[in-house]
């Protein structure tokens, strides 16, 4: 059990960064660097963190950062890992830190390649469910029904299930997290840190300007995402799927908050009809039923080595 008060006092995300008010991604960034520490190299494609880190000659990130082209995170990180290894530089963690577009869309090939090659790094997707940096265009991580600037009447398709795509690569560790549950978040990253090979974390990060939500509600929205079952915290460790404790409670349908409580706080879902909300509720219930059955189960066979 991790205690928040035991968390490193060192702030590797310096004051004065350029994140939006209420940005949950910047919370995720801060927590991540507190766990990872200063012996960490970040590889960052075009994403909100391109902005958050600040403009030359300043930088809000007090670790080495390689900004790289949109599609290139997994590959550039592979190069960093290989370069460190051949030069005999040890005990440096390499993190690919990318948004949802840079992960589930344009960066999926390089990430898939890196995972297939069992590259020794942690890839973290912070997911605000659209291209936030460019002004909220739809990505394949945008949930069904959500307004974006390129889905003006709401997205018609489902959110891509990236964690399970990563599971198909049979990597040793996959987890979902959210900064609203910092202990769960930290425990998962601590666990990931100790494992060799490709590790993947998918973090939902509420985004007030994009979600059309109040800036002071980002932590609350994250909690509601979990409590309604719209975002499920789980791990796939060496192929075994398990629901994490904050989400375990909502497996019981009577303890599950209606999705409406989560949706109604966000302008991006404001246009939804009662029927459409009911459809989303049905989908969430079905997903949780499915996850319940999957709990404790193996989703891919154990690797032999």
């Amino acid at each position, binding site marked *: 059990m991790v205690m928040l008060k035991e968390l490193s006092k060192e702030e590797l995300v310096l004051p004065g960064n350029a994140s939006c008010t209420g940005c949950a991604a910047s919370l995720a960034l801060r927590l991540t660097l507190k766990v990872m520490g*200063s*012996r*960490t*190299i970040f*590889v960052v494609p075009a994403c909100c963190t*391109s*902005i958050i*880190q*600040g*403009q*030359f*000659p300043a*930088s809000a*990130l*007090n*670790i*080495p*950062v*390689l*900004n*790289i*082209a949109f*599609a*290139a995170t*997994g*590959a*550039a*990180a*592979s*190069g*960093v*890992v*290989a*370069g*460190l*290894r*051949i*030069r005999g*530089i040890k005990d*440096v963690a390499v993190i690919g830190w990318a948004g949802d577009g840079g992960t589930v869309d344009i960066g999926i*090939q*390089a990430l*898939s*390649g890196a995972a*297939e*090659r069992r590259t020794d790094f942690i890839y973290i997707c912070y997911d605000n469910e659209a291209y936030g940096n460019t002004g909220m265009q739809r990505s394949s991580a945008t949930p069904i029904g959500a307004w974006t600037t390129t889905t003006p009447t709401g997205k018609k398709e489902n959110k891509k299930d990236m964690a399970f795509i990563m599971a198909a690569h049979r990597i040793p560790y996959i987890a979902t997290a959210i900064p609203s549950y910092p202990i769960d978040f930290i425990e998962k990253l601590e666990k990931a840190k100790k494992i060799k090979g490709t590790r993947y974390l998918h973090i939902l990060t509420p985004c007030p300007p994009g979600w059309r939500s109040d800036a002071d509600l980002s932590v609350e929205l994250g909690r509601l995402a979990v409590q309604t079952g719209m975002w499920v915290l789980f791990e796939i460790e060496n192929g075994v799927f398990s629901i994490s404790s904050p989400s375990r409670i909502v497996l019981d349908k009577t303890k599950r908050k209606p999705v409406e409580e989560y949706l109604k706080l966000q302008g991006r879902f404001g246009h939804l009809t009662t029927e459409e909300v009911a459809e989303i509720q049905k989908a969430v219930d079905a997903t949780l039923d499915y996850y319940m059955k999957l709990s404790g189960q193996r989703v891919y066979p154990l690797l032999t080595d």
Partner: protein
Amino acid sequence: MLKTIVETGNHVAGLAALVARAQVVAAYPITPQTQIVEKIAELVDSGKMNAEYICVESEHSAMSACIGASTVGARTFTATSSHGLAYMHEMLHWASAARLPIVMAVVNRAMGPPWNIWTDHGDSLPQRDTGWIQIYCASNQEIFDSIIQAYRVCEDQRVLMPAMICLEGFILSHTNMPIRIPDQKEIDDFLPPLEPGWVLNVEKPVTHGNMLSPEYYMELRYFMHEALQNAKRLIPQVAREYSKKFGLPEYSGLIEQYMCNDAEVIIVSMGTIGSEANLAVEKLRNEGYRVGSARIRVFRPFPHEAVKEIATRAKALAVIDRDISFGMEGILFTEIRSALFDLPKRPLAKNFIAGLGGRDVTQNDIEEIAKKTFRILETGTGVEGIEWVNMRR
């Protein structure tokens, strides 16, 4: 001590990466480059080459991985061709603007559609504005020499830019030729370990490539331009030093000249057409033509001054392009004509497009090109327009 071996251009490129002690190689296979990556994979797997070999899933990733490795101070190498190079295009800019001395073999191959695996320069020449040094080879020996020299030039603190060493598909890539290679010890002496311009280091963290305002951006581009100007001075120096140290050819640095001094007509070309042109020159000289051959070896940085110097002595240039800039003319021709503009007395310049998609360019074709240029000089007509050599009508 030189050792003579007989190898294909591709294997020579792989071998050069080995003796240059490339530490990270990230590559994706594409015809006709495949033998390079196969050779390196074999060398790494057998333990003969102490390198990390990353079998990436695309050329975009190949260059991205080289960039990543280079930013932590590793010497990197890759190889590609045609569509692979085009797919890499975005990262070519990234590599040069990040000032990373990556060396890449480009096996020149035509772009599709339709699919064509044979050679032309239409893949690498369109990359001319990416900031990469471009060297075009005419023999397997030159491939080897150019790769070794490229590391010296690229890693020089006054340069810190990447280079592509271009060799024509099949004509060089799959053709066995004898080459002479120096001892590893001597190579090590010539090419010391990489001292990077900057590194990602946890002890001294830097953020590389974050947002930069218009106040600063232009200066960085100026520095890149300056770096390639420095490379222009350095390439012949390094070639001379190499040649002296090992007793290997110098290729006159930027432009290889053959009987240009008293020539009325100079055949200007790149790659293996240049070596074929030398044979044509010999034959034509025997027939009484005052003709020479200038093979542009280094296309970026472009040897403006050297072109001007050669051109002042000639009456006409016959510029052979194995490429075409649609709606304009041959890419080399544009560059040559731009260099001529400053001359008080300009020679005529005629553009010949030849050998696209691997069509053979024979010694006889080059002789005809030269003779046609002499006729233009005599008659004073026919200089306008592009001549498409051996094209079906």
